[in-house]
């Protein structure tokens, strides 16, 4: 088989092959791969549309500091054919941006910012427009006013071949109205009021966004989820990247676009948690490695250590200090060798005074490696805006009218070494908690959220589900969680939610997130256990008394046979003994019980951090 392989008869050369070479636009890519955008399955596709539009509205309102007022209307137009209208009172989209916001994929304000938002990839609204267009051929109608007196009413399509907006019709008229209405049709989708449909999506949205007023209407009914708190959550702030989460290419990017003059000031101004002290520490770590690697072949190990020890690697004048150390340690050695070593070192030593524009990959890599060896403060959490313990409790009380509810908003933490997050967990018991079963009973319901946006699909592999299932609920006397009237609410807040897949419907099992959720669940479960125990106690005491009374006659008869004494008399004496035990006990027990119910529900729960509250 080592002979030269023979080529096919029809030789085709490279030029011919590349005749059809062309660039493909993202819009065309997604047209053929709509599942990447979540448009897969008839039911899920419709829910995805609602999700994208509502998410966008809520984000916009919050960024502008407006209390959201959202209307969602779903009209059935025919078989698997629906119109979806989503209206908000947000800041509106300026006329000059409307076409690209709605008519071009991967544009927007969020993708490149390190900020906590529901949507993040700039594919949301324009993706919905694309989906509408490829199922109905029709444009999406956008009405938007920014409150400056002008309202735009436009019909927008995406030119798929070029990924650019195509305005089919546009009218601008005068009105002070502010807000956005998106109106779009879809075919090949299916509406259901079931567990994974738009209605349920909005109900969950209401639970996690009690500052929003939400109106929902479908072909058969309408419902208003009223606003529960009157305060807009603080605007999420952009967080500077934390050194621990960076990869070399990220750092290079930052360095090259920084306005700082020196790497040292670049690190301090562009990254979070990097102080002047830390810069010096980084410099020391980087250069220790560099000196060791550079001199490895030239000097014995012990000499290298001496040089490192004698150099002040944190110094501003690092090159001079290293040079001095070399001379001191090698004093008496061959002069030529000494100057060779100094020359080599000078070329390698990392000087924090260098310009960030000149930073190269290798150096960025050295810095990133050093970041891993230096201990930084946890990233700032000012960008994380939790819903807050009390607000969640208020929202769930309003929504479920439960017998028991408790929420925990945990302090921020980081995962994968540098990405800040916090979890909020709540449990509601009784009332309308849980999901109604077809037999009219109730079963447990897990409400999952990422940055307040509901996650309705792919519950199986989600860290929230895994954490819930990992709890030994029996320990908390919840014998059969599956069929308990319980709603479990879990919200992950993060600048970067680690979804398991492009579907953005399940959160990956990062250990730190898993542990935080578990911890919060267990803490609330303990309180719930106490609540349920208190409820049970009165019942039990009553049952006890009845039980003693039941055995009295039989015992009396047997004892009468055994002793010859009159059975009636024995019975009366025994009854007296039982009664006296309970007359004492009942008053005492009932007292205990009340104390428990008042106090215990909230004991042991630490006050949430100031920061975690709005």
């Amino acid at each position, binding site marked *: 088989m080592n002979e030269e392989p023979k080529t096919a008869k029809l030789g085709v050369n490279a030029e011919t092959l590349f005749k059809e070479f062309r660039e493909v636009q993202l819009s065309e890519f997604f047209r053929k791969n709509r599942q990447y955008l979540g448009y897969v399955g008839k039911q899920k596709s419709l829910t995805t549309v609602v999700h994208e539009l509502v998410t966008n509205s809520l984000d916009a309102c919050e960024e502008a500091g407006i209390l959201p007022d959202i209307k969602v209307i779903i009209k059935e137009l025919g078989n698997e054919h629906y119109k979806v209208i989503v209206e908000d009172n947000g800041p509106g989209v300026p006329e000059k941006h409307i076409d690209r916001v709605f008519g071009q994929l991967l544009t927007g304000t969020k993708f490149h910012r390190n900020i906590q938002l529901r949507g993040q990839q700039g594919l949301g609204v324009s993706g919905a427009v694309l989906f509408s267009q490829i199922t109905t051929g029709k444009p999406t109608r956008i009405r938007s006013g920014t409150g400056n007196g002008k309202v735009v009413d436009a019909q927008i399509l995406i030119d798929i071949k070029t990924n650019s907006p195509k305005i089919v019709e546009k009218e601008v008229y005068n009105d002070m109205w502010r807000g956005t209405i998106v109106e779009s049709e879809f075919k090949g989708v299916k509406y259901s009021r079931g567990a994974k449909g738009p209605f349920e999506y909005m109900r969950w949205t209401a639970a996690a966004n009690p500052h929003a007023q939400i109106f929902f209407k479908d072909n058969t009914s309408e419902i208003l989820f009223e606003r529960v708190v009157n305060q807009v959550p603080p605007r999420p702030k952009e967080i500077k990247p934390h050194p621990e989460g960076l990869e070399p290419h990220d750092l290079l990017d930052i360095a090259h676009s920084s306005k700082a003059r020196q790497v040292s000031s670049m690190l301090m101004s562009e990254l979070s948690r990097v102080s002047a002290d830390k810069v010096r520490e980084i410099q020391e770590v980087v250069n220790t490695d560099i000196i060791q690697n550079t001199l490895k072949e030239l000097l014995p190990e012990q000499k290298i250590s001496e040089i490192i020890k004698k150099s002040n690697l944190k110094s501003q004048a690092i090159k001079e200090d290293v040079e001095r150390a070399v001379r001191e340690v090698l004093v008496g050695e061959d002069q030529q060798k000494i100057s060779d070593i100094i020359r080599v070192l000078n070329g390698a030593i990392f000087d924090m005074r260098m310009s960030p524009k000149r930073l190269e990959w290798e150096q960025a890599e050295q810095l990133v490696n050093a970041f891993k060896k230096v201990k930084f403060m946890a990233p700032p959490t000012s960008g994380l805006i939790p819903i807050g313990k009390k607000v969640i409790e208020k929202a769930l009380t309003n929504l479920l009218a439960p017998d028991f509810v408790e929420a925990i908003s945990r302090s921020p933490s980081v995962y994968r070494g540098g990405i800040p997050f916090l979890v909020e967990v709540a449990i509601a018991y009784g009332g309308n908690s849980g999901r109604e079963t077809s037999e009219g009973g109730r079963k447990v319901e897990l409400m999952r959220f990422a940055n307040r946006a509901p996650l309705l699909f792919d519950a199986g592999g989600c860290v929230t589900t895994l954490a819930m299932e990992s709890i030994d609920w029996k320990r908390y006397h919840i014998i059969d969680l599956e069929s308990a009237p319980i709603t479990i609410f879990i919200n992950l807040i993060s600048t970067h939610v680690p979804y398991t897949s492009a579907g953005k419907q399940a959160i990956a099992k990062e250990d730190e997130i898993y542990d935080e959720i578990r911890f919060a669940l267990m803490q609330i479960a303990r309180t719930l256990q106490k609540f349920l125990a208190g409820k049970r106690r009165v019942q039990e005491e009553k049952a*006890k008394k009845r039980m003693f009374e039941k*055995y009295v*006659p*039989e015992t009396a008869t047997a004892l009468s046979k*055994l*002793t010859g004494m009159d059975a009636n008399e024995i019975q009366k*004496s025994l009854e007296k*003994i039982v009664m006296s035990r309970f007359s004492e006990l009942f008053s005492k027990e009932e007292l205990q019980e009340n104390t428990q119910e008042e106090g215990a529900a909230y004991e042991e729960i630490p006050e949430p951090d100031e920061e975690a509250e709005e």
Partner: protein
Amino acid sequence: MEHQKEIDQESLKKINEFGKRILEEIKSGKSPTFNLPLRAKSNITFNEATKTLELGDKYSTRSFLNIAHTRKFMQSLLVAAACKEYISEGKTVGKRELYYNLKHSLPNSKENTFEDDIESGSVLNDLEASLNILRERLHVEAKARGSIYGDIVLSQAGDTFDCSKLGRGGWAIPGYVEDVDVVNHKADFILAIENDAMMSRLIQEKIYKKLNCLLVTGEGMFPRGVRRFIKILSEKLKLPVITFVDGDPYGFYIYSVLKYGSIELAHLSERYAVPNSKYVGMTMDDIDEYGLQNVTEKLKDVDKKRIREEMQYPWFKDNPAWLRQLKLMEQKGVRIEQQALANKSLDFVAKKYLPEKIEGQKFLD
């Protein structure tokens, strides 16, 4: 029958005292209680002197006003009252008969006095321990299973019979043997045999004449009645007991229960255990000694587990000869049955094995 009367008098006295104490507590307005010795492992010790399991002096108290005790308390009184009646009427009952006799529903309730004979059995155990009296003496008889054969004339309930004149069978040992008397006998020891087919072989081979012994079998694990019967015979006649069982953890267990008592009945060891028992076979050494390698059986997992347990038994754990047997068994991974001796020849057990070992005093103790 005078004998029987004395026994009954003493039993009645104990029952009456039990009732009276409880009645007095009720009269004085206290929650009625009674004590019973703790039958947990923590309260059972092995008496090295008497070589039997014994109960320590830890007690637990049954109290009517303790919700966990109330039902058992009532049941204990029911059983005590019934036993008093049986003794008075001179009847004995079986365990399950007792249950049926006392079962009825509680007034205004669907609940019964006893739901099954496990409940009544457990109350009976408690009462036995609390009154420190054998259940047979409360006129509740044990399971009848097992027989005796040999040169002994017994009498019971007015009948007198010769246990060597019963054809190929023997006397079926009844569940109640408290009143058995020995009229006369010609025997040097009692041979307690695990397997009824081995019993048949030894009757056929007339070993009772050859070795001058009484043959008793319990058909597997000796039931209470048979153990009690062996105990009575061995005490009355001062006869040693030689145990002949399968060479496996279960055989060892049968032997050890016969000799030392069981945890369940530790409170009655002195009335059941036969400390002068010896073990003649089968042993692990027999396998090589008599060339039985081909008729061993593999140990099952449950056997292996039992070996580990038996190594911890108080009477085995410091006994080098027994530990050696257990370790050998573990090593070989096999067990050897009594009947495996038939592999040599049918009469091998009677002509060679037993004479050789018994006359040579080759026992484990």
